[in-house]
Every structure is written in C-alpha cells, then in structure tokens.
C-alpha cells in the first residue's frame, strides 16, 4: 500500500492487482482527479438527460406527438452515458469481448421487445371482435 494515490489504477481497472504487481512506472495510470472527473461528467450528463425526460412530458416544451420519440432518444442517450462513464465500456482492446457481447444482447433484446409488439399488434388486428363472434354463432 503506497501513500501516493497517483500511482494507482483506474476505476475502469477495478480489481487490477496493481499494488503488489508489476514494476511501477511502466503503465500510465490515471490520477484520482482524472477518474473523479469522469464519474462527475457521467453523473452530470445522466442527471441532465433524466431531467430532460421528465420535463419533456410538459406539452409546452415539445410538440405533442414528438414526445414519445424524444423520450426514447433521451433514454437511449442516458443508457449510453451509463455504459461509458460508469461501466467503462470503451473501445480499448480489453473491452472488445464485452462490446461484442453487448451487441449480441442488444440484438436479442430488440428481437424480444419489438417482435412481441409487432406480433401482438397483428394478432389484435386479426382477432374477430367478440360481438361478431356471437352473431356468427347465433346466426
């Protein structure tokens, strides 16, 4: 355990055995200030996007029919902010597998979510109304 906080590893490297590990000074480690700034930026952006989502319900702020689209955009943007600033999902080589797994997860989630909505919408449309069904049986 060293007294110099600047020597230690990044939040993105939680669990890295840096303290007793390899020789010091060979890998650039972000300072506490750099990492703290990352989390603060993430918090600020996420709070802004959350606030924007809640405010956009006010019809005077955004054109009525556009609200749903605005909410989806704010939501997706906030998920992106969380992934980058809190989960540290970056483009670094260590993260390639994580990003690929995420892409697969997004594919499955999209299939399940939009597929269900699509199928159920058409099922509802093709459904014979209960009234008509009664008349058919009675006739």
């Amino acid at each position, binding site marked *: 355990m060293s007294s110099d906080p600047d020597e230690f590893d990044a939040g993105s490297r939680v669990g890295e*055995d840096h303290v007793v590990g390899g020789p010091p000074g060979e890998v650039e480690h972000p300072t506490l200030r750099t990492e*703290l700034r990352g989390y603060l930026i993430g918090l600020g952006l996420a709070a802004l996007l959350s606030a924007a989502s809640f405010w956009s319900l006010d019809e005077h702020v955004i054109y009525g029919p556009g609200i749903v689209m605005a909410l989806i955009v704010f939501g997706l943007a906030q998920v992106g902010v969380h992934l980058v600033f809190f989960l540290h999902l970056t483009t670094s*080589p260590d993260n390639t597998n994580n990003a690929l797994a995420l892409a697969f*997860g997004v594919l499955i989630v999209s299939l399940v979510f939009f597929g269900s909505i699509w199928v*159920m919408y058409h099922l509802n449309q093709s459904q014979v109304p209960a009234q008509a069904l009664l008349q058919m049986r009675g006739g």
Partner: protein
Amino acid sequence: MSVPSNALRAGRDPYHVGHAPSTGAPEYTGHGGGGPAPKRIVVGYGFWIFILSDVVLFSCFFATYTVLIHARNGGPGPREIFDLHGTAVETACLLLSSFTCGLASLAVARHNLLWTEVTLAITGLLGLTFLGLEAHEFAGLVSRGAGPTHSAFLTSFFALVGCHGVHVSAGILWLGTMMAQFPAKGFKETIRHRYLCFSLFWHALDIIWVGIFTVVYLIGTITP
C-alpha cells in the same frame, strides 16, 4: 500466435500482458497474442455475460408491459396510478447511488478502507430509500384496489417494477456483504474481483431503471 518480439527482447514476461508495459505491445491485448487475459478481465467478462442475460429477462417483462398496457379490465390506467414526483425522486436516488458506487470503486482501487466503507454506506442508504419509496407506491396501489390481480396491465406493471425491486434488494444484501468483507479479509484480489462484479451489477440496475422510468412511467403516462 505472435508474441511481441520486442517484449521478449526486453526480457519481460510476455504472458503477463493484458496490460503489457507501454514499451511492449499493448495493442495485442484482447486478441490472444501474449497469452491469456488477466483474471480480472475474465471475471468481468463472465459477469457481464450474466448481466446481459438478466437484461434479456427484463426485455420480456418490458415487452409484456407494452403489449398489455391497454388490458385494464375496467380498472385504472397508467395516467391514474402513477405519481411522477415519486418516480423522479426514485430516479435521483438510484442515479446518485450509481455515482457513489463508482466512487467506492476508486477507493477500492486505492485500498482505502475508510472511503470504501463510507461510499458503500451512502450507496446502500440511497438504495434503501429507493426501495422504501417503491414499497410505499406498491402499498398505496394495493390499498386503492389496484393490486396486481386486478388487470393484466397491473400484473405486468407489478411484475416488471417488482422484478427490478427484487434485484435492488439482492444488490443491497451483496453490498452489505462487501462492506463486511473488506474490513474482515482486506483488499485481496478475490475480494476486489467480487467488488468488480458488484459494481457491474449495481450500475446495470440503474440502466434497467432508465428503461423503466422511460417506458413504464413516462411513455405510460402519455399513453391514452
């Protein structure tokens, strides 16, 4: 497999990479060159796969809610039952707890016990506040006769938001375990890897909540 030759020439252990020395070949990491990735990368990847499977589970609940939002059996719809002020406070609690969990990661990386415990305690308290608000909301709905048994819409609402609440409860139990293990066992590698998984879990719960307040509460409220 190509072992970076300059790393060999430099006399360093080429299999210790994942984070090769800056004079070595960090560009080989993650591509198999230079040996297996460090354990914390593998641990994080494995737990990330679990989290993604959990997200797939949640996507089924989201789809159910969206499909059943009009199936109200004469009961109340989203507009009648949601108090968006409460939702905003819950959102703030979870977002702040995600932030303090990140601060705890910084403290863990520096082996600082005091700050680890303080930030984890704040994270836990914010999580408990969130759970309290959610329990209050659920109890209010049930007492008004809008419990999960009233309509398919209410069933899907309680199932989705309740499932997230169960995850948060499990996260708080895990958080308490970590708060006990850091003082008892120290900042050992296994414990720090365990914390890495916990922080992934907690941040992921906040991402799920972004989906919930957007789809369930906000889009739900403007759905006729």
